[in-house]
């Protein structure tokens, strides 16, 4: 079962994409919702809003534990990547701190600067997948053990570290579920 964090943000688009692939998925709003899950998607949205809700409903520690368990696969997109990062800037804020990277919020500017572009993930044999950068963040620095899985115009846009995959863009807004399919194939043999 794949959980999709549903406290705020683009969780519906992820759920729809996963359902297109015929894999079971559920919304995660409270800690007990994680019990049935062996994989988790942290969607885009507003990271400040999500943090307030994660703290108010005691989800910070359960999510951290879930991410630290190497058997659980985690995919984080946009604000989700901000939640995972060890260090967040512009402005500085709290996070789950499980992914050793520095990430800058709203690094491209306001909505006017949002853009769509094709990206490739060579490690997954994924070529020219349409994705969407919406008020997107940027990875500024990567810690030891963090691998780059995608980049665009010189910026690192996707990383993987142990059981965690984090990207600054939105693959879930594309009609084609190819990105999620590739993530599942390459990371989640145990997910059913």
């Amino acid at each position: 079962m794949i959980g999709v964090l549903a406290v705020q943000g683009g969780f519906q688009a992820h759920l729809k994409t996963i359902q297109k692939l015929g894999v079971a998925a559920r919304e995660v709003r409270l800690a007990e919702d994680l019990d049935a899950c062996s994989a988790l998607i942290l969607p885009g949205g507003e990271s400040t809003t999500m943090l307030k809700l994660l703290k108010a409903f005691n989800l910070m520690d359960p999510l951290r534990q879930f991410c630290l368990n190497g058997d659980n696969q985690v995919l984080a997109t946009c604000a989700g990547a901000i939640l995972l990062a060890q260090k967040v800037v512009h402005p500085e804020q709290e996070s789950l701190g499980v992914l050793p990277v520095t990430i800058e919020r709203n690094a491209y500017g306001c909505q006017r600067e949002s853009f769509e572009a094709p990206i490739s993930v060579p490690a997954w044999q994924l070529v020219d997948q349409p994705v969407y950068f919406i008020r997107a963040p940027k990875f500024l620095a990567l810690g030891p053990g963090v691998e780059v899985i995608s980049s665009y115009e010189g910026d690192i846009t996707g990383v993987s570290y142990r059981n965690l995959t984090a990207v600054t863009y939105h693959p879930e807004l594309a009609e084609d579920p190819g990105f999620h399919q590739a993530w599942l194939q390459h990371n989640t043999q145990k997910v059913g």
Partner: protein
Amino acid sequence: MKEVGTLKLKTGLAEMLKGGVIMDVVTADQAKIAEDSGAAAVMALERVPADIRAQGGVARMSPPELIDAIKAAVSIPVMAKVRIGHFVEAQILESIGIDYIDESEVLTPADETNHIWKMDFKTPFVCGAKNLGEALRRISEGAAMIRTKGEPGTGNVVEAVRHMRSVTSEIKKLTVMGREELMTYSKEIGAPFELVRWVHENGKLPVPNFAAGGLATPADAALMMQLGAEAVFVGSGIFKSGDASRRAAAIVKATTHYNNPAILAEVSKNLGEAMVGINISDIPAAQIMADRGW
């Protein structure tokens, strides 16, 4: 190929606001309070609807320096309102980098026949709608998000409920119609045929559908979410109440946990005074904001 300003990017930002609360603010301080309470975005205004209603006069776009101050104070998206049909106010907001433009009936209309041709802009627009026909007319002009109009500044949710129910029941009706009925239906509701056909086939609006207008309590927010709203706007309801930051945080929690009555009960406790509401029947016809829009 890198592309900007596409419909997918415009509706994409609305997707990211889902399950969130967009709060009306008139100062940078209020914007900070809204962000600290968990707002997913703020709407920068010169006056909240309750004050526009009380003070009268022509209500216009906020001055750019106020919007700049609000943008500088927060990291979440900042929206602002323009008068219906006032495309130059929209050009100004786009040039100062506003994240979403609300072509809003809360302000005094600048054009009593036409809305803005929103396709000309890279910045996404949200528009109010009372029914399906109005929603589809706005979408065909380029709106990337629809919200109920409700009756702003009243603290009375009844009109938002009416508008959400009429949009959803018209969508349901449309999905069970025969294809031969669609042309006449599109003529009846004054909506473009292609969009009517799209809704007939898909059973939903082609853009996200939010609630606005008269929401004042966590229960109001949860009501609109249970009726099918994907996020909520709260205007005067927060900063016209006794304890703005407490109420704001409670409405944020209620919007996430809209289907969980135990949590709704808990967050509804000890919020202080709600804004004093107005009964719709006490408002003179000329001051009904929901009737603005064509």
